[in-house]
């Protein structure tokens, strides 16, 4: 019994921490901001995990869906005077619609072709955004109305947290329902799934629509918070980041992907400037010229890593794929929950069957 309590305690603890964070970080608007961004990435990573890990659709267009909603919302706000809320709803629906179209186009594409096609789609979208200056502001970006009239990050923090929890909850419900069964059967073997009566077309497209809407929701809301969006957010490196987060967290685990995204985002922020003890700072400063040759730097508090922290994650991504296919975070969650659950459930099920039989005999 004790073993089962631990993961629940941890979970509740994390939740409490998340809810209380703004109070704890009162003066650190910066970290609050990072947290809202972490939740943004978590929504992207978790929804991508649902699409790729659960339904087996390795789409590289996820960031594009995120941006479609954001740009759409920004544009209707700017040109039609729509409120951010209306814009967000519109953007999410538009992302869903494009998701439907892409899902439909991809129906007959097998895994590698699907990856290539969605990369092409993402690239075409990026090119269009860059080219259509009048509509999108081109490389210079698009300003977006703030969602709320406040300079504090706290309300936004709670909004993003709420959206993350809501979308995780929704996706969990999906995954545990027959949708999840069908998604996974499609991932495992489409033809066999069809032979078992699964409406493969409908559920494949549904996977695209649902996940693109969640990505769109994250994108539209977050960018009404930040107030600005630019095509640099559409480069393939950002898609790689989502993938890295989902893979490292656990591609077949929504919670794993979300936690992975949050941890990685915080880590990337923290790693931007690795703090060095005050005593060693003079040594570091002395090394500055050499460090600069390698693209590193010295800041006020320590070592400035620039692009190198991403290099680290690239390596981590490749190693995780090679040695820990199920991710780094997911196995931990699994170990805590499943071991007990699995032993229990067979017995439980047999029990349920026997009880039912007894009831039938008695009636």
């Amino acid at each position, binding site marked *: 019994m004790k073993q089962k309590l631990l993961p629940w305690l941890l979970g509740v603890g994390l939740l409490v921490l998340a809810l209380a964070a703004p109070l704890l970080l009162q003066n650190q608007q910066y970290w609050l901001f990072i947290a809202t961004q972490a939740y943004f990435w978590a929504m992207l990573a978790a929804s991508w995990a649902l699409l790729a890990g659960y339904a087996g659709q390795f789409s590289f267009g996820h960031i594009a869906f995120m941006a479609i909603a954001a740009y759409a919302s920004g544009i209707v706000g700017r040109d039609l005077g729509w409120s951010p809320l209306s814009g967000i709803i519109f953007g999410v629906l538009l992302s869903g619609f494009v998701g439907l179209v892409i899902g439909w186009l991809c129906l007959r594409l097998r895994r590698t072709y699907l990856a290539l096609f969605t990369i092409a789609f993402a690239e075409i979208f990026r090119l269009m955004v860059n080219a259509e200056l009048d509509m999108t502001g081109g490389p210079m970006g698009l300003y977006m109305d703030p969602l709320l009239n406040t300079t504090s990050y706290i309300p936004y923090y709670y909004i993003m947290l709420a959206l993350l929890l809501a979308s995780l909850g929704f996706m969990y419900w999906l995954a545990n329902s*027959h949708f999840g*069964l*069908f998604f*996974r*059967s499609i*991932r*495992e*073997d489409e*033809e*066999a*799934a*069809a*032979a*078992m*009566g*699964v*409406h*493969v*077309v409908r559920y494949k497209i549904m996977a695209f629509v649902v996940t693109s809407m969640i990505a769109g929701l994250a994108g539209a809301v977050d960018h009404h918070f930040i107030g600005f969006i630019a095509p640099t957010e559409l480069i393939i490196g950002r898609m790689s980041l989502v993938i890295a987060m989902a893979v490292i967290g656990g591609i*077949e685990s929504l919670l794993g992907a979300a936690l992975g995204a949050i941890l990685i985002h915080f880590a990337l922020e923290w790693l931007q400037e690795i703090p060095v003890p005050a005593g060693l700072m003079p040594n570091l400063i002395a090394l500055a010229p050499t460090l600069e040759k390698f693209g590193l730097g010295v800041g006020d508090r320590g070592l400035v890593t620039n692009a190198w922290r991403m290099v680290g994650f690239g390596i981590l991504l490749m190693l995780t794929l090679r040695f820990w296919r199920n991710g780094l975070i997911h196995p931990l969650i699994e170990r805590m929950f499943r071991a007990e659950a*699995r032993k229990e*459930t*067979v017995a439980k*099920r*047999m029990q*349920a*069957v026997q009880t*039912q*039989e007894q009831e039938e005999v008695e009636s």
Partner: protein
Amino acid sequence: MIELDVRNVYKSFGGVQALNGVSFKIEGNQLVGLIGPNGAGKTTLTNVLSGILKPTSGEVWFNGERVDKLPPYQIARRGLGRTFQVTRAFRRMTVLENMLVPAMALHPASRKRDFYKKAMEILEFLTIEHMANEYARSLSGGQQKLLELGRLLMLDPDVIILDEPFAGVHPKLMEKIYEYIRIVHEQGKAFILISHDMESIFTLSERLLVLNFGELIADGDPQVVKHDPAVIEAYLGEEEEEEGPVAIPARPVAGPEENDA
């Protein structure tokens, strides 16, 4: 009454004529064996019946409805189930989940737990109920075969096509599969058994269809068909050929055989 009516089905791929005017009708719970040399078109026929392939011409009617143009999942839902030559269980899903997929596909509004009882009963009959919460990939080959058979039953099919159910199967497992076929048959289901295992075919089938080069060269009582010269030639004739996509049958046409799997 169950009725599967195959009307003059042709199927060609590019230059290859895989099915050449195949016609037959299954009524009621017949246990039909389908045999033929390799490359004769048995799997192609199965793919056409289950909807994976569409006939180039001809029609397939099932229980009074034309089905050859329907997508596979709709044919499955109407009660035509099939297995594949290579077992295709959903590997990264549990055995129980494998069972639930067809059940939920047929009844999406239901809850998974509504089918636990039926699933566990079938699994118990197939002696793999203890693996219910294991991932299908941890099952042995034989167990996976049984899982596929169990999974089929969750579709509540009228017609079951088994594609090489005896291939590479050890005697104990063979017994179980025979039992499955007999019991399900008694419950009123029709079977189409595709196999190179002649002993099993002749033990189980009430009726024998023989396919060769996409044509149905025999259709009738197994004991009669066995002596049909066209059938004998189809099997023996190919041994004299040097080329061609056909292979020597895995087992002799009649006689005892051993199997070590």
